[in-house]
């Protein structure tokens, strides 16, 4: 039992979870507040990760590498938005899902092995040092509670969650402002907004770029503990982020935070639980992982059917389906 709890906690506070939270915050701006169907958030993350990793490998300092990553994602979002945001919402979904795949396929193209590392990706050690060098904690290990990590790992945990809370604060300010009201107005009815003299296209573009930028930050944090693996940031990642967002509650500021933590903790619970209690003659450990994902899929379906507002979403806000 202790093992299960330990794994759940470990997953809940890992930087990977933090990366999910940030990417889901971006998706929440797209979908929850503006109603944009972005089915390629992983593409924004991968784009940010590439921008950061490649520029660091080329010698850029940390701040510049982050700026380059954000710049690359801004251009990417504008390219996607210009042709699609004047059309009906479904087209954005189609374009984003394919654009995310394009980024992934271009990244793993063997012709670009020099730059992107091809399908092997970029190993974390090539770009991580500029971040770990900033750590004030020095070398060695520290034990806090049940967790005994390298100091550099604690540094990553600290920064990742600090960024999460900064992003949450930023979004809270944004969506409670008149600009946030514009977003929700666009989500509800674009023609009504036009009849009130609002520039719907510009608002959607701003939302697409801003949500994409959160995706880029999430992508950078996602690859910091491991490596840039294009195949690890495909459609699957997008759908996990969607699950996390819907689980927590779309259009709720803290929905992405709660959803991502629950998502990882529940998955760890199912997997380690199955590992511990189901004899390996029935389910091997490779199978328990698959099993955990199946449970995630079923959970997503049940969620959308029975509790569309998520755990903390506003039920009143989702009741009226015009």
């Amino acid at each position, binding site marked *: 039992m202790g093992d299960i709890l330990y794994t759940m906690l470990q997953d809940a506070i890992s930087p990977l979870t933090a990366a999910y939270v940030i990417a889901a915050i971006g998706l929440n701006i797209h979908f929850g507040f503006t109603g944009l169907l972005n089915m390629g958030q992983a593409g924004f993350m991968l784009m940010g990760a590439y921008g950061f990793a490649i520029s660091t490998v080329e010698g850029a300092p940390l701040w510049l590498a982050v700026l380059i990553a954000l710049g690359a994602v801004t251009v990417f979002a504008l390219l996607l938005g210009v042709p699609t945001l004047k059309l009906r919402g479904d087209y954005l979904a189609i374009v984003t899902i394919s654009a995310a795949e394009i980024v992934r396929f271009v990244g793993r193209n063997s012709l670009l092995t020099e730059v992107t590392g091809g399908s092997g990706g970029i190993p974390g050690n090539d770009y991580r040092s500029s971040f770990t060098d900033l750590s004030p904690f020095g070398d060695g290990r520290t034990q806090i509670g049940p967790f005994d990590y390298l100091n550099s790992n604690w540094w990553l945990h600290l920064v990742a969650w600090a960024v999460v809370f900064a992003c949450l604060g*930023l979004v809270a*300010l*944004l969506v409670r*402002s*008149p*600009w*946030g*009201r*514009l977003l*929700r*107005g666009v*989500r*509800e*009815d674009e*023609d*009504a*907004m*036009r*009849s*009130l*003299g*609002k*520039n*719907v296209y510009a608002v959607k573009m*701003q939302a697409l770029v*801003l949500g994409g930028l959160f995706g880029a930050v999430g992508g950078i944090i996602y690859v910091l503990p491991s490596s840039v693996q294009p195949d690890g940031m495909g459609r699957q990642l997008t759908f996990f982020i969607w699950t996390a967002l819907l689980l927590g509650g779309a259009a709720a500021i803290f929905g992405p935070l709660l959803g991502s933590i629950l998502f990882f903790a529940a998955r760890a619970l199912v997997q380690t639980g199955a590992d511990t209690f189901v004899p390996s003659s029935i389910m091997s450990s490779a199978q328990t992982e698959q099993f955990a994902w199946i449970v995630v899929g079923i959970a997503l379906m049940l969620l959308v059917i029975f509790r569309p507002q998520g755990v903390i979403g506003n039920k*009143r*806000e*989702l*009741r*009226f389906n*015009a």
Partner: protein
Amino acid sequence: MPEQTDLGQEPQSGAEAAASPTGPDRAHVDTAAVEANPLADPTERKRLMGTVDTTPGVAKPDAVLKVDNVRRDFGGITAVNVDHLEVQRGIITALIGPNGAGKTTFFNLITGFDKPSSGRDAKWSFDGRSLGRTNASAVAKAGMVRTFQLTKSLSRMTVMDNMLLGAPQQPGERLALSLLRPLWSKREGEIRGKAEELLARFKLLEKKDDYAGSLSGGQRKLLEMARALMSDPRMIMLDEPMAGVNPALTQSLLGHIQTLRDEGTTVLFVEHDMHMVRHISDWVVVMAEGKVVAEGPADTVMADKAVIDAYLGAHHDTDLGDDALLEDDSVVAELEAEAEAAEAAEKEKEGQR
């Protein structure tokens, strides 16, 4: 016309009722308003519009909206083909015509929600400013705000948020400034006060924190109109403001529209309810098959037998309570057929929802 007496009484304020006890000619006179705006006086409006010819496309003394060569084709069908139309400033103009006459399409065209097929030949100007080839939000910013036949309330937002979205010039709507509350809190306070005022006028104030989706159909109509007024438009275009609104609410909506006119706003509205058209409009434009076929004061246009028969239906003012009619079998059969057709249309409408 005896059926107008019930509509002739103003429901809203005591002052109005006192000013006009009876009479088919709505006397919506508010002396304070008349001082500020001469057109708030019905005799003045009558005098002004009496000088205008009743030919389609006639020039108006002070036109706020001028439309030229607006045509819209859908495949082989010409839905709208208006050569010339002017809308007089400061009065209520009704746009009527049978179903499919192109009224809503015409609305969509001049408010930028649709593009004319006549391309560069199509010209229209609002208050001297050309509005051809502009988008819907630019039209609204220019001061011409519309409502929709099927109300577009923002369901999953509160009534108050709906209202606040109607206000123009909000610095907080710029992304860069939205994070800095002190830069927009003053304007926010202003528009909130204004929204409360309007909501109180439209009897929606106690609903301000409810989601718009929880309002009834009629309340949504009121909300949409109130929201359009947040920008102080110089001209408001109402697309069937009375459709689906119960009679009591109709009375208060009529009052609101007249108040608007008395405050100097130009009103153009599409409506099927002939009582209402006769009751509040100062000028009526009749459209049929995409063209403007008649114009004039309500009485003149409605007295035109051809217009009535061709565009309003021969029985539009038949009193269904008149027993004498029951003796004439052909009339009864005809009325029954009409009622059935209307019912079927209603059902179809509901099915689509």
